[in-house]
């Protein structure tokens, strides 16, 4: 029981509408991506974690504590909500400062921390412009600054990249990586799967209010038996290579999508990769390229959620 987030049988209903349904998972060390279809329960989970909602059933703890009515815990977390409406007439600097002071920070310290946080997210130049003039990427960064400014232990980010331009996305991802590298935990939700893969291998997959999978993407992928791993091999002699590979009894099928391509499906990818160099070297068949197209978060999502 030492995950950053521990949830046991958590349920939350809004009348008839499902929020979470017996959600059970343990996760959160380092950077964790929260992934799921729209309506799966991500926002509900966030609201439970920041103490805005109380569960109808089950227990949930963050950093070992119950988030409900827990002001000291709130100080240890930084939350970045999804919606983009900031107080348009405030400047970026004022926005972060005001929220810090609402938290109880003295004014002078708030100013210093706000300036520092805005620098970390790269908004120093725009800090004294009203936020109504900010692009969407800048607003995301302003929200991130206010989440970071009080040096929390954990960041909870709801769609932090949405609407940001390419430079903004890179900057935000880097800020998140740096935060994690310095010992913080990050829980972030996004629909753009390849961006999560860039900064972490840990995910929680939510669907219909339940946690379908939690952990390392590759480990999860390896567990999905119905979809054996596909490995695409570029070779001039795909059929001869297939013959050689057929010796391995964990291989289930071959496909020849092009005259110089072989797609092998195997139940045990680790064993496959371990044995492949021997076979290639023994048969002296030329292999030009090698790729596993479905060992990705996108594939995991597709196979588990559909």
């Amino acid at each position, binding site marked *: 029981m030492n995950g950053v987030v521990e949830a046991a049988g958590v349920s939350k209903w809004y009348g008839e509408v499902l929020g979470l349904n017996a959600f059970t998972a343990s996760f959160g060390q380092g950077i964790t991506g929260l*992934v*799921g*279809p*729209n*309506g799966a329960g991500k926002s509900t989970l966030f609201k439970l974690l920041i103490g805005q909602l109380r569960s109808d059933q089950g227990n949930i703890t963050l950093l070992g504590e119950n988030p409900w009515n827990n002001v000291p815990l709130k100080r240890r977390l930084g939350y970045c909500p999804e919606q983009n409406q900031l107080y348009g007439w405030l400047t970026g600097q004022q926005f972060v400062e005001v929220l810090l002071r609402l938290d109880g920070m003295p004014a002078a310290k708030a100013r210093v921390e706000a300036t520092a946080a805005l620098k970390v997210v790269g908004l120093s130049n725009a800090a004294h412009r009203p936020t109504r003039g900010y*692009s*969407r*990427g*800048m607003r995301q960064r302003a929200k991130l600054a206010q989440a970071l400014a009080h040096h929390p232990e954990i960041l909870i980010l709801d769609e932090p990249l*949405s*609407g*940001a*331009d*390419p*430079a*903004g*996305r*890179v900057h935000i991802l880097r800020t998140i990586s740096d935060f994690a590298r310095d010992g913080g935990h990050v829980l972030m939700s996004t*629909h*753009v*799967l*390849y961006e999560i893969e860039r900064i972490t291998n840990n995910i929680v997959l939510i669907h219909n209010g339940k946690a379908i999978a939690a952990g390392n993407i590759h480990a999860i992928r390896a567990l999905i038996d119905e979809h054996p791993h596909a490995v695409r091999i570029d070779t001039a002699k795909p059929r001869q290579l297939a013959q050689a590979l057929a010796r391995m009894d964990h291989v289930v099928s071959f496909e020849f999508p092009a005259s110089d391509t072989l797609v092998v499906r195997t139940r045990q990818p*680790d064993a496959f*990769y*371990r044995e*492949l*160099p*021997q076979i*290639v*070297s023994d048969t*002296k068949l*030329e*292999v*030009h*390229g*090698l*790729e*596993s197209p479905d060992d990705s978060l*996108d594939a995991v*999502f*597709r196979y588990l*959620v*559909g």
Partner: protein
Amino acid sequence: MLVETAGLTKVFGEVRAVDDLTVKIPDGAIGLVGPNGAGKTTFLRLLLSLVRPTAGTAKVLGRDIEDGVLVRERIGYMPEHDCLIPDMTGVGLVSYMGRISGLGRDTAMSRSHDVLQFVGVEEERYRKVAEYSTGMKQKVKLAQAMVHDPELYIFDEPTTGLDPRGRTEMLDLVRTIAKSPGRNVILSSHLLPDVETICKYVVILDGGHQIAAGELSQLLAGATDRLRIDVRGDREGFARMLNEGGFDADAGPTGLHVARKPGLEAAVFETAKALGAEVRYMGKEIRSLEELFLELVARTEKRGA
């Protein structure tokens, strides 16, 4: 030429949103990328003839943007923001838009059902748009852009708000349209990997100017032709063995990079066998559009600063 501009300029007060832009964009699947404030939105508005240029000219599909109505007959536009009429049904809205584009009532209705089928809206088409999920709304937005079978589609962030499955579906639809002969697509998006998988030609804007444009394959051709290898096991040892074997390998954070030479691929597997290591990926070292983009924008910033 899909789009030809000459000195196209649009000034809003003090802001030169589009500044003396002279470009020639060919037919096909075109990506339009740029930082916020680069002028992408204004450029698209100019192409749709929704704003008049301050200076310069432009032609879309051979028609001058002076005659906006003529230009818009052949364009289908999918805006980024919400824009559907909430009280109409999906099929009602799409056929309505078809009629405003000049389709007869029956043609519009028949076509409306066809495109809604194509984008994957089933019985929901008879319900009011106000009740639709985000994914459905995006599909209806796409359908209304398709109903009159335009020659040019303009997609502005088509996957906004969609969950991973919705994103995949939408991108597949865009790709199918882009591949359709005689049909052209301009895809404006911040998600550069999406642009990479769909578009063959890319236009990069910044500060109202075009800072790069060209075939994606050419823009992204690596400076040196290297092979990238993902090794599980003793990576350092792997690189060392390859170097001893006469190759030029170095182990970086994204894998091993080795300059191509004859016999390299065989040597890779020999080395793996010898070390008991696994080769998990072997392929071209291609720069990504994102790297190129960030490089170019940084260069422009430096020049301007």
